[in-house]
């Protein structure tokens, strides 16, 4: 059964002014019981074969694709698309029979690097291969392997992100794999976020097998498709998610789209809510309920109530230290990702200032919590590091780590499971 737990950092607000509070949510997806319950997969592997992918990188992309092919079974479908300045459908969407996978291995081995990078055309052609054979019950996903930046055709990040979101809403998700050090991590992260998938960083041949395994494990084990958290907010209340999730409001209901959840996946996220003031001693409640594509989930409902009190009671109330810790970690992760972006743009002072500022804020409520004290020290050290240009590999690692943490995943972008 799905589990939803919700805890606020503080349970009291000022009766007249109201106040901003954080809510920690812990969502536990149910277990996939038995291989027979696994949904069939419908995948497209999209390989960047632009000139910069020459040598080891195209070999990594080919290797990742071959690795993934070995994980498929007869009930799955797959396609292989490669692109540079033009797009080639190397293997049209086909059943993943042993024979066809064997033929595909030979085709993938022949993909060579040359030309420019029309990422949009290649990626969307891969999605079309998936869409052509899309059926209810499938887990449909496009896996994009690239080392570069979109430099031909449609290159606007907003438009590419909008395509990803539109396709996700129509049942085709996208995960991205950045290879080497030259890719645009901000663009690939946006496509993955909007596309309901993961963004991963393949630094060397030592990484790709593990990361492809992790991606397929997440894809194979999907138990809740198109998960949505509905937050019912009191009149005059507001809600914001600390992370990349977008909220859509309909009256008092705010829907937070969480995408697909895997077997026993544990997702922790933080909501920042504004609790409106009201009559002294009264309570106001935020309702939380989880849905997947089929409807409301058993066990997926919770409420969080806040009491309105006078100033002295509000000030004296205890804080939930575990919630504080998660809130601090998520704010730190968001700031770290932003600091990497600023450092890359040459705004070293801005990156340094931002990291020190978040450390200052956490210090106000950290007390003697050793985890938070350690986090503050780390942020200050990183602030010094950001005062000068960072190496490309350090930037990429920092971005991957902080982006993943912000999304409640492990350092490599893989979902956390109960048994982990």
């Amino acid at each position, binding site marked *: 059964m799905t589990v939803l737990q919700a805890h606020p950092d503080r349970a009291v607000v000022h009766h007249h002014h109201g106040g901003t509070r954080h809510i920690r949510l812990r969502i536990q997806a149910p277990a996939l019981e038995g291989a027979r319950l696994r949904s069939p997969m419908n995948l497209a592997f999209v390989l960047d074969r632009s000139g910069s992918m020459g040598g080891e990188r195209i070999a990594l992309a080919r290797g990742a694709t071959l690795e993934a092919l070995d994980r498929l079974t007869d009930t799955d479908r797959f396609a292989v698309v490669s692109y540079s300045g033009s797009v080639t459908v190397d293997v049209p969407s086909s059943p993943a029979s042993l024979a066809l996978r064997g033929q595909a291995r030979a085709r993938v081995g022949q993909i060579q690097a040359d030309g420019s990078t029309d990422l949009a055309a290649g990626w969307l052609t891969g999605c079309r291969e998936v869409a*052509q054979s899309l059926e209810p019950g499938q887990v*449909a996903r496009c896996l994009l392997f690239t080392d570069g930046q979109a430099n031909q055709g449609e290159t606007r990040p907003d438009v590419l992100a909008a395509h990803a979101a539109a*396709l996700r809403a129509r049942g085709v998700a996208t995960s991205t794999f950045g290879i080497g050090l030259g890719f645009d991590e901000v663009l690939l992260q946006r496509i993955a976020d909007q596309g309901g998938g993961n963004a991963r960083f393949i630094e060397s041949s030592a990484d790709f097998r593990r990361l492809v395994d992790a991606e397929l494990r997440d894809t194979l084990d999907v138990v809740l498709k*198109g998960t949505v958290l509905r937050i019912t907010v009191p009149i005059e209340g507001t809600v914001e998610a600390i992370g990349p999730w977008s909220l859509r409001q309909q009256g008092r209901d705010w829907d937070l789209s969480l995408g697909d959840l895997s077997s026993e996946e544990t997702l922790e996220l933080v909501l920042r809510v504004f609790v409106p003031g009201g009559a002294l001693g009264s309570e106001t409640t935020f309702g939380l309920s989880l849905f997947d594509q*089929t*409807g409301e*989930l058993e066990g997926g409902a919770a409420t969080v109530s806040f009491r309105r009190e006078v100033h002295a009671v509000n000030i004296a109330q205890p804080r939930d230290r575990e919630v504080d810790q998660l809130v601090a970690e998520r*704010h730190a992760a968001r700031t770290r990702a932003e600091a990497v972006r600023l450092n890359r743009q040459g705004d070293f002072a801005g990156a340094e200032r931002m990291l020190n500022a978040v450390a200052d804020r956490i210090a106000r409520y950290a007390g003697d919590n050793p985890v938070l004290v350690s986090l503050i020290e780390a942020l200050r050290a990183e602030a010094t590091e950001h005062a000068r240009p960072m190496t490309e590999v350090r930037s990429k690692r920092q971005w991957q780590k902080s982006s993943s943490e912000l999304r409640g995943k492990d350092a490599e972008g893989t979902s956390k499971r109960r048994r982990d």
Partner: protein
Amino acid sequence: MKLTDLAAAADTTPRTIRYYIAQGLLPPPAGAGPTANYTDEHLRCLALIRQLQAAHLPLAEIRSRIEAGGGPAPPVVAAPSAGDSALDYLNAVLPNLNSPIQSPRAAPPAPPLPAAQQRRSTWERHCFGADVELHIRRPLSREDARRVDALLDEARRLFVKESP
């Protein structure tokens, strides 16, 4: 009806219904997530599945009988319109990649709101610190919503990310 209502009416569990949908025995509901809606046809289809299961038929055989129309008509659910499918979306977008995505197929039209809701509006209050707030009255036009989203992103960048 909701999933839980369907499960109660069919004397089964939501989990079983999800399994039947995943296995292609039962069509998905109209809508998804909070708007998922099941009909009496789903109920009839569940009854048929139970009947065939009582005859000890395997699920694969049950599926093929349902597909072959060997029982009551399959449940009728509101299928997405042509423009709602991923394939139609891509067929519209791919030939014209340099165009902004303003094609009619780019997004399904929102259903018209009831008259009462059309007149309603809601103020959103976004706090960016002790002394800085933004107030926005929704609904907004799509163009204004985009501008406001950009404004909020910028405000978050300036204020929120510095304040845990």
